């Protein structure tokens, strides 16, 4: 797949007073942007939350279909590299894969995950038989199995990875062959407006000992702030397909799981003290065939603290989006949004209208996910 295909996810989400991602001083992380202090949630914190959510939601793909797919991929490669007939190549591919014991499901530890293989690994395995393909095909089943046993198939396939790694990548400095380039890029979330760091001074009293000791058992402070955050992530679909060994269906599933996880998860820092779990007021997904476009510049001038930071932030995002398309003259392939702003409410009327101009009418989040999938599938279909 050569086509550039990026899926941008933009989220505007308001969190109440909270401390969801703290530094070594125990205070919420911050950054300066547009000359003012902003609340920040690091990309690594939100990625961890996304990943945990993803793991609970995404069912393991079915082993049997997966094996069939690997066999198909491998067959296609053998056909390309040796010029054999498809039937013969299929025989070879199946003989090679027999060594992996994929269909039985191996011991129930990490390998309970169904592993995916990148294109490089499939190429390596196809290359094992490229030289002697004609001789191998001439053998009967038993002799073929014997011959193939000699080949280092398992070694070539030893660095498979579960679907989560295909999305989020893996980096092992000393063993580059284990590395998988992440398909997902997540920016640090920052507040669309200026924030102040505040402190909650607390005293803890020993309930068992109020008579003898009238003072506090312990005192301290918890840093916190409250923010409307702009969160952005993009998925490089070509990279994702490559990480999943060319399996477009698995890539669509992974993308869907990522969008769900990124939108609905949240870091859990201090959650028992602040109960900060909210859901986004705006989620926009944009499918682009040129490049990922981060809209953070919309908030470089901080949103003023008057009525409705949330609505104002969403309005600015919508206008930045339409402005981008106008400036560069490149309409994205598809854009849609789920949001809470309505035209019936005077305070959010402008926002709802700007969003409708940018993304059309708001759709329920479940529909957003389905239509996203449909649009990507049809885009890929046109390409094929």
């Amino acid at each position, binding site marked *: 797949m050569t086509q550039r295909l990026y899926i941008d996810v933009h989220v505007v989400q308001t969190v109440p007073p909270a401390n969801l991602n703290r530094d070594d001083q125990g205070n919420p992380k911050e950054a*300066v942007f547009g000359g003012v202090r902003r609340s920040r949630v690091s990309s690594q914190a939100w990625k961890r939350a996304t990943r945990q959510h993803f793991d609970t939601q995404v069912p393991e793909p079915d082993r049997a279909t997966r094996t069939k797919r690997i066999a198909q991929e491998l067959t296609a490669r053998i056909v390309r590299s040796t010029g054999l007939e498809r039937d013969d190549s299929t025989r070879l591919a199946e003989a090679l894969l027999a060594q992996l014991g994929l269909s039985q499901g191996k011991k129930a530890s990490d390998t309970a995950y169904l592993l995916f293989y990148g294109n490089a690994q499939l190429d390596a395995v196809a290359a094992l038989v490229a030289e002697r393909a004609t001789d191998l095909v001439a053998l009967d089943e038993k002799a073929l199995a014997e011959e193939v046993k000699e080949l280092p198939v398992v070694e070539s396939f*030893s660095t498979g990875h579960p679907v989560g790694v295909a999305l989020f990548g893996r980096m092992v400095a000393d063993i580059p062959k284990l590395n998988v380039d992440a398909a997902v890029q997540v920016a640090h979330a920052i507040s669309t407006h200026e924030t102040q760091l505040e402190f909650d001074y607390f005293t803890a009293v020993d309930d068992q000992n109020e008579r003898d000791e009238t003072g506090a058992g312990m005192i301290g402070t918890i840093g916190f702030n409250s923010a409307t955050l702009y969160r952005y992530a993009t998925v490089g679909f070509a990279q994702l397909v490559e990480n999943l060994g060319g399996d477009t269906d698995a890539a669509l599933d992974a993308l869907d799981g990522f969008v769900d996880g990124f939108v609905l998860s949240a870091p859990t820092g201090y959650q028992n003290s602040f109960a900060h779990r909210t859901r986004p007021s705006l989620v926009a997904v944009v499918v682009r065939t040129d490049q990922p476009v*981060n*809209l*953070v510049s919309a908030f470089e001038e901080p949103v003023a603290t008057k009525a409705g930071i949330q609505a104002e932030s969403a309005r600015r995002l919508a206008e930045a989006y339409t402005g981008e398309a106008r400036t560069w003259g490149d309409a994205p392939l598809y854009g849609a949004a789920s949001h809470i702003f309505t035209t019936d409410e005077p305070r959010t009327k402008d926002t709802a209208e700007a969003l409708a101009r940018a993304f059309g009418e708001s759709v329920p989040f479940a529909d957003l996910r389905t239509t996203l999938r449909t649009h990507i599938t049809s885009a890929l279909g046109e390409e094929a």
Partner: protein
Amino acid sequence: MTPPGRTSVLLLRLAAPLQSWGDRSMFNRRETRPEPTKSGVVGLLAAAAGRSRHADVDDLAGLGLGIRVDQPGSLLRDYHTVSDYRGRPLLSAAVSANGVQKPTSPAKRTHVTQRFYLQDAVFLAAVEGPGELITALEHAVRHPAFPLSLGRRSCVPAQPLVLGQRTGALEDVLRAEPWQVTKAVRNRWGRRNSNAAHVDLPATLDDPAGDEIRDDVPLSFAPTNRTFTTRRIRHTYLAAPTGLTPDPDHPPATGGHDPFALLGW
């Protein structure tokens, strides 16, 4: 479009809430230079062009680079802990016989790292080279093969990233480009500086006769063989147009003599 055989300059605006341009920090403390490195810019171009880490980057490393600091930003230290998201012990670098990483022993659950970023910085990067290559790179940056980032993957560039091509010498191109800051910053500066038509911005230019050396020219990005070589650079100040209209009734308060101008104050 430039005629064949001519050199051309590609202008990139490197701006985002966070950027990070490491040059030689390793392990748990990842620092950033105060301005983009050549390896960072070359890496961005190579990623845009879809080159793998093993690909040859000599043609890109041979491009002339000039960086103008439009807004220096400030340093941000990010306290970053690493742990397995499933709550298992971290994996070690050692692998078992069948190529699977072994867990750390004794089990280590959290790894602390310090990562430094530049926050709220804006740079103008000018890349000079043969016209055809620059045109190809401009198209690549507008249609990147991999998502681009400003030195670290979480540093997503803010738009616009590409300002287009210019013809002329690197230094002249950097001098002619309007100051890339927000209206608010520009107006604030204008109030203090009598809306002067030009602002002196620090710049670093590749120059074979330069008096300073940087060790950030990539020879290879291959994971097991990352190697760099040196380049000579020169620092200067460039008077860039602010787009403000000076008020003739209120000349600058310095009486035309500003001893601190050389320091960029």
